[in-house]
Every structure is written in C-alpha cells, then in structure tokens.
C-alpha cells in the first residue's frame, strides 16, 4: 500500500516537473528527457510486472490527459503499460548487478521512446519533417540514457526504504528453492552474469506449477549443475548461497501435507518426524534398520544434522557448504553432504558412520584427515561418497576402511574408497572415471582391488561411467540401475524387494543408501543405482538373511526382478539421457520417484 502511494506520488511529481520545466527547456538537440517514462521503468524494475503495468497505464493516461496535450488520448497509456510490464518481467536484474540493471533500464527507456514516437506517427501523422523527427528522437534518447541511473537509483532507494527486499523469495525465480545444483549452477556459469538457477525453467519463470514444469526444471537444473538428477524428482537444498542462511533442520517431512514435491521439501520438517518415528508406535526404540533420514538443506552453510535421540541413520547436509553432520549420540549411519559448492558430507559422530557422503559441487570427498567429507572417526566409515562436481575422492583414511566408496556426479567424479582397509564397495562415478576403490587411483575404474573381494561395485552415471566390480571374489551386491532395475539380488537367490521404486529410468543423484546396522556387518544390499547408467554385471549380495530391505532403490514398479540389467552406456552427458526431441512424457525417466519408507509411501507425485 505504501509502495503504491509512493509510486503515485513519484509519478505525479515526475509528470509535473516534466510538463512545467523540462519540456520548456531549450536543450541542445531539440529533444527532452522523458521523466515519466524513466519513472515507469524504474517502478517496473523494482515493483514487478503487476505494479509496472498499473503504474505505466496510469502514468501514460495522465500524460495523455494533462493540460497541454493535443494528441489522441491513450497513446502513452499503451506504450507505458507495455514498458512497465516488460521492466517488471526483468526485475531480477536488480538482484544480480547494478550495472546490468542500469543497462536494462536504459534499454527499456530507449524502447519506450521509440515506441511512443512510432505510435504518435501512426495516429497523429508526421508532426515534423523526418530529419527534425530523427534529431529530436535521438537527442531525447540520449537524455533518457543519461538520466536513467539517477532515476533508477532514487526509485530503488525509495523502494528499499519502503521495505522492498532485494531478496524476496516469492518473486524471484532465481531465488526459488534451489537444489544442490543451485550453488553449483551459480558457479558453473559465472560468465553469464546470472544463472538459470535450479528450479527455473528460464530465468524469468517462477517455480514450476505443473508436473511438466517441475520435471523440466529438475532436468535443467541437473544439466546445469552437471549432476544427474533423478528425473521428476524434487530438488534438495534450499535457497542459493548468500541469500538465506541454511536451515539447520534436518528432517524429512514425509507426512507433511501437500502432494508431490511439497512432501519432499527438505529442511522444513523436524528431525525424526519421518513416518515411522512420528507414529505413535509403542516401540520407543527405533526399529532396527529403519532409516531415520535427516535432511539438512539449503543455504550456504547448509548443514544437515540428524539430531536425534535415536540413531540417525541418514543425515543429509544440503546446501552449499553442506556439511551433513550426523551429530547424534549414536552413530550416524549415513551422512550426506550435498549440494552447494563445498558439499561435505560428514558422517561425523561418535558412533560408526556407516555412510558418509560428500557431494555437491566441489564435492569434496570424505577425506579422512583433511577432506571435508569425513568419515573420520575412530569408527569405520562404511561408505564414503564423493559426489559432486569435482568429486574428489573419498579417503577413508581414518584408520579404517570405507566400505563403499562412491564417486558420483559432477564432472570429474571420482570416488575413491581409498583406504588401507578393505574397501567393500567401489563405485565408478560420473564423468569418465569410475572410482577406484583402492588407494588413490585416478582413473578409478571402480575396482575394488583390495585383497578381499569388493562387495559392491557401482557403475554410475555420467558420461562413461564404468563401474565394475571387478573382483576376484564373488560380488555380493548386484546393482541394477537405470530403468530396468532389478532388485538387488542376494546371493541366495531371493530377490530383494526394493523398497524404493523409482519409476524413473534414470534417476538422480547417487544412490540413496540406507544403511542399517547390518550394513556394517556386510549385509548391505543395494538395489538400483539411481542415476547411474550402469548395471553391474555381477551380483553382490551380503550373506545372511535380511528382514529389511534397502529403502532406496531405483527400480521400476514393474521391476524385472530377475533380469540382469544390461549395461547401459549413457548416451549423453549431464544426465540428459534421452533425445530431446522426444516428448517429455515419453522420455525415460519421466515418471517420478516413489519412495517408500517402511512400506508407506511418503513421496513422489505418482
């Protein structure tokens, strides 16, 4: 309301000054600046398209009707409302750089002047000879360009004083809850001056309002970030860096209302409010094997802490400096560090971190000593992930051997389960390399050439993700990934029922691992390497029967239970697996991911 009043006052003042003083000044060149147009441009840039349209129309109408006017009424109203709308649509330049905003405002003023001259030429006939018209128009445009920064600065100051924030979430698509790719996207495309930030189809569009829009956004964000997101999935992580502080809530709002993506809005829940935990189950102690899953999302120093009295099984740290700390009294089973630039996943805890993720942009791995993703503890990190952009290795050099080493995402995804101990799982990450799970091997080929047999070998997405669990021993876990993902078949032949079925043919970032206590004992069974193109030619299964099956699988609902997932080579880079000319619903992976936790569907759109 105050903004409207201030805008009205400013426009009236500009109109009066223009008509009484400026138009009568004998400026060189014959033209005169158009203060009303400049004000409309500035108000549109700061206020948005709505206010731009209204202000433009009213200012133009006032200019048409004010006393010394003899033209056809409505010309300036038409031109100014268009200019106001256009400037409102470009309002995000204000948040990117001041110079860009000034350039855009000057361009808008030039366009407005030319449009006004054109409209008056059409409706009123030539008011002057062509040369005179050209001279007057050129000098007017010049004066407008000179005065644009002044007017823009004044209006922006007034707007900020009135409370317009420069980082309003709801009206900037650049500030939509971006995913882990948000921050990476920003740094990936710095030269553009702006970033088609995650969640935006184009930089002028808002959050996706339809399924198709959301999927498109997810695809774009994945492509931008270089990650290979799960198609149709939501984004993880919240606001991009520097804008909002990271929410430290690490929770999974599985039961929150809403549908589809809103259910998967990470960071908005309470730790431990997942389906099982929030149920008034008599079991005070969390049932063994149930993933707790705590997300930490968003922001710059995104930390996801899975605090809980119980055993946080999975802790996500999203956001930029995403440090997923599963600081609990117990051992965090899985610690994620996702998103952002310095994704660190620390499964730091007193207990035994089973899985530690480091993902995100400069996905630093779980380095034992200095790496950000630390499964550092006396205990043995079961799985160390290095995801993200510069997916660096996982050095499970904390004295123990990481069980699983991932190299995911990003460009040079390497996951190294480098450890002195026995790496159980070696992953081949995205890019062209697969992690080597033995020592610092650069061109990791997903080998776990430890002395013992690598338990799980992943070949994951990216360009030529080649994951081979080439081991001499018998691999225990078989991964089926991609579309026709089979279940993880155990060695004893019983197909593991994947709990999490992904209808997406190619799913997103890295396998979601639900480590249970049994994983430490080698009972980890994975089904489906989400997002990764490769199926393992071998089957890996842990011995022993399992009551609980891994929670996250990427398997189609109609999974072919026994079929060996044929090795799929990714055809395209950056997660764009299928040709673009296919309609979106026909592309592989067009369906969303349905997650099941403990048998209850908690997420997914379908």
């Amino acid at each position, binding site marked *: 309301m105050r903004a409207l009043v201030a805008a009205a006052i400013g426009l*009236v003042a500009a*109109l*009066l*000054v*223009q*008509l*009484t*003083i400026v*138009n*009568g000044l*004998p400026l060189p060149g014959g033209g005169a600046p*158009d203060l009303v147009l400049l004000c409309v441009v500035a108000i549109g840039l700061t206020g*948005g*398209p*709505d206010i731009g*349209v209204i202000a433009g*129309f009213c200012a*133009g*109408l*006032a*200019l*048409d*009707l*004010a*006393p*010394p*006017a*003899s*033209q*056809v*009424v*409505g*010309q*300036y*109203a*038409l031109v100014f*409302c*268009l200019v106001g*709308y256009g400037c*409102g*649509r470009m*309002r995000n330049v204000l948040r990117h750089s001041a110079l860009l905003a000034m350039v855009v405002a000057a361009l808008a003023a030039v366009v407005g002047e030319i449009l006004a*001259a054109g409209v*008056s030429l059409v*409706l009123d*006939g*030539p*008011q*002057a*000879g062509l040369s*005179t*018209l050209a*001279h*007057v128009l050129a000098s007017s445009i010049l004066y407008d360009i000179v005065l644009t920064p002044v007017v823009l600065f004044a209006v922006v100051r007034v707007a900020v004083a009135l409370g317009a924030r420069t980082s309003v979430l*709801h*009206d*900037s*698509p650049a500030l939509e809850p971006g995913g882990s790719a948000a921050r990476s996207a920003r740094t990936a495309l710095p030269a553009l001056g702006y970033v088609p930030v995650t969640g935006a189809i184009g930089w*002028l569009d*808002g959050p996706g309002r339809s399924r198709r829009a959301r999927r498109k956004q997810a695809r774009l964000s994945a492509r931008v970030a270089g990650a290979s997101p799960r198609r149709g999935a939501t984004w993880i992580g919240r606001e991009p860096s520097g804008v909002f502080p990271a929410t430290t809530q690490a929770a999974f709002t599985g039961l929150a209302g809403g549908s589809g993506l809103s259910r998967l809005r990470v960071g908005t829940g309470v730790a431990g409010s997942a389906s099982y935990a929030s149920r008034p189950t008599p079991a005070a102690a969390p049932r063994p094997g149930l993933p707790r899953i705590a997300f930490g999302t968003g922001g710059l120093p995104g930390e996801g802490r899975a605090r809980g009295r119980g055993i946080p099984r999975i802790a996500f740290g999203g956001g930029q400096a995403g440090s997923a700390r599963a600081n609990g009294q117990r051992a965090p089973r899985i610690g994620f560090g996702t998103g952002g630039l310095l994704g660190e996943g620390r499964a730091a805890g007193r207990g035994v971190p089973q899985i530690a993720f480091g993902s995100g942009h400069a996905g630093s791995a779980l380095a034992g000593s200095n790496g950000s993703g630390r499964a550092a503890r006396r205990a043995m990190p079961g799985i160390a992930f290095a995801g993200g952009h510069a997916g660096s290795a996982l050095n499970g050099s904390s004295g123990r051997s990481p069980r699983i080493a991932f190299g995911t995402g990003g460009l040079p995804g390497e996951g190294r389960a480098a450890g002195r101990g026995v790496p159980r799982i070696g992953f081949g990450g995205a890019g062209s390399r697969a992690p080597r799970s033995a020592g610092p091997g650069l061109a990791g080929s997903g080998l776990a050439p430890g002395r013992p047999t690598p338990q799980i070998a992943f070949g994951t997405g990216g360009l030529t993700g080649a994951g081979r669990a080439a081991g001499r021993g018998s691999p225990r876990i078989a991964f089926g990934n991609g579309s026709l993902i089979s279940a993880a078949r155990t060695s004893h032949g019983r197909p593991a029922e994947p709990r999490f079925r992904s209808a997406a043919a190619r799913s997103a970032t890295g396998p979601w691992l639900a480590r249970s206590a049994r994983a430490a004992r080698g009972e980890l069974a994975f089904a489906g390497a989400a997002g990764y193109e490769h199926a393992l030619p071998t089957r890996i299964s842990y011995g022993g029967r399992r009551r609980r099956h891994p929670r996250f699988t990427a398997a189609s609902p109609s999974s072919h239970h026994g079929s060996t997932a044929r090795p799929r080579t990714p055809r395209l880079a950056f997660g764009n697996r299928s040709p673009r000319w296919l309609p979106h619903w026909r592309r592989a992976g067009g369906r969303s991911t349905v997650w099941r936790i403990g048998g209850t569907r908690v997420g997914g759109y379908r």
Partner: protein
Amino acid sequence: MRDTRRTRLLLGVALAAALALIAIDYHDGSSSLVTKAKSASDSVFGDAERVVSSVTGPVGRFFDAGLAGSGSGQAGTLRQEIVRMRAELSAARLSKADYDQLRRLLQVAGRGGYRVMAASVIGYGQGLQQTVTLDAGSAQGIRPQMTVIDGDGLVGQVTSVSSRTCTVMLATDHSSVVGVRLAPGGQIGWVTGGGPDRNGTGLLTLQVLDPAALRLGAQLVTAASVNDRPFVPGVPVGVVESIRSRAGALTGRALVRPYASFSSLGVVGIVIAAPAHNPRFSVLPPKPAPPPSPTPTASPSSKNSKKPSSSKPAKP
C-alpha cells in the same frame, strides 16, 4: 512473478483499455468521455502546474531589480498598464525579462488596438506536440479560438479552456493554419507549422495564391477571420526567408521565419477583444534598412535628409 496469470490479466486489461481509448478518441475527437476526462485533468493538473510554475518560475529566471522605462507618452500609459497587470499577476514575481516581454506585448497591443489578457506559460506539450498551457482560464474571460500574441508577434490560438487554465496550439504545430497577408500588397496566403522549433530554427511554411508576389524579406500579418475567430487581423507573423515555389505550381511556397520566439515563451497575451478597425500593417516592426546599394549615393533624398542635421549644429 508469483502469479503470472494475474499479471497477464492485468496487462491484457490495460492494453484493452488503452486501445479502446485510442479508438474512441481517434474516431471522434470530441467524444464526451474524452472531453470529460480532459476537462477533469485540466482542472487538476492545470492547478498543479500553476502552483509548480509559481514556485519554480522565479527561481529559474534571472531576477533583476529595477525597470528601465522609456520616456514617451505612450510608454507612460503603458507603464500604468504594467502596474495593473502586475496586480493581476501577483502570484508570479516577474523578473526583468518578463517585464520586458510584458512591455513589448502591451506596445503591440496598443499599436494594434487589441485588448489583451496577459498570461504566462505554465506548461509545455510533451514530445512533438506544439502546445502550451497558460494560467488564464474561463474565469478571466478566455474562450476557445482566441488569438494569442507575444510582444513579438503571433503565438497561436486557444484550443481548449478550463476554469483557470487554457491550452494554446502554437503556430508551429503541424495542424495549425494561419491566414496571412503579404505586407505591402496584401496578397492572401496561409502559413502552416513545421514542427518543433529546434533552438529557434523552426520555420513556418507559407503558401500564397499568387506566386509572383513572393519576395524575399516580405513581412506577413494575420488576415482577418470571420468574427475575429480564431485570428484577429494585423498581428505580425513573420518574414519570408526563402522561396520554395516550383514553376507551374498552383501556389507559391516559401519558408517563413516567425517573429515570436517559440522556444522562449514567457508572458503572452490573449486577445480578448478585437480592434475596432483593421490595423492592417501598422503593427509590423519597421523593415530593416536595405543593404547599401553599390551605386554611388548622390540621391536627392539623402541630401535632403542630411541637410537639416548638418545645419543644426551651426544654428545655436
């Protein structure tokens, strides 16, 4: 851009309204909707412009104390008029420049016998429109289609009037046509505007019915109109600057430099009452002396004019 549907709806409504207004006004220039809107805005913005110009006017102008007056009898009566006008224009403190303009205006009015209402310009037209707003309205007796003159010559005509302001279409407007007579012979022609007066270089276009009557430097005055509306006769218009006629054309064309300086209008007068008799060419300023001819000067007229001046100092 949270709700783009609403935004687009707003834009559509605004565009439709603007186009409707354009269509209405283009089709019927005096549509009641538009005239009502214009009169309302005239009263609102006209008063606002008066206030603003009264505040900013004296600041922008050079204020010089004192007024140098001339000493002839006509100037004495004019000085009284100045005093009276000053009382009428009490809201605006006139600077020396304005006093000069007013004085010249009253001189022209006196010579032509016009009864003028002095007013000052408070607003200027936007873009390429050649219009101004004056701070005299129907309350002062202004009616549409009255002649507006300056201390130098014709300025324009009144097109619309509100209670306290009026809008004047300048002679440089593209749609303004002024009937004129050529100075010595009285040939009829008309003058149309040529667009914005870029730093005083705006020229009017003259077309005369008799191309042979065109002379370089010929002076023009307004021709009489029916009921003296919109133009009273005898107001100086301008000087022919260059001839553009084509052989065989029906009318002779020329470019006219107007007397009034349209880029620096200050105090103007609205002719309320036309003169009883047509002043014809009496209001015109004296023609500038022709350049000396190359032939030797032994003309009797120059000798006669020189004699009394040379004999004067001889006689005590």
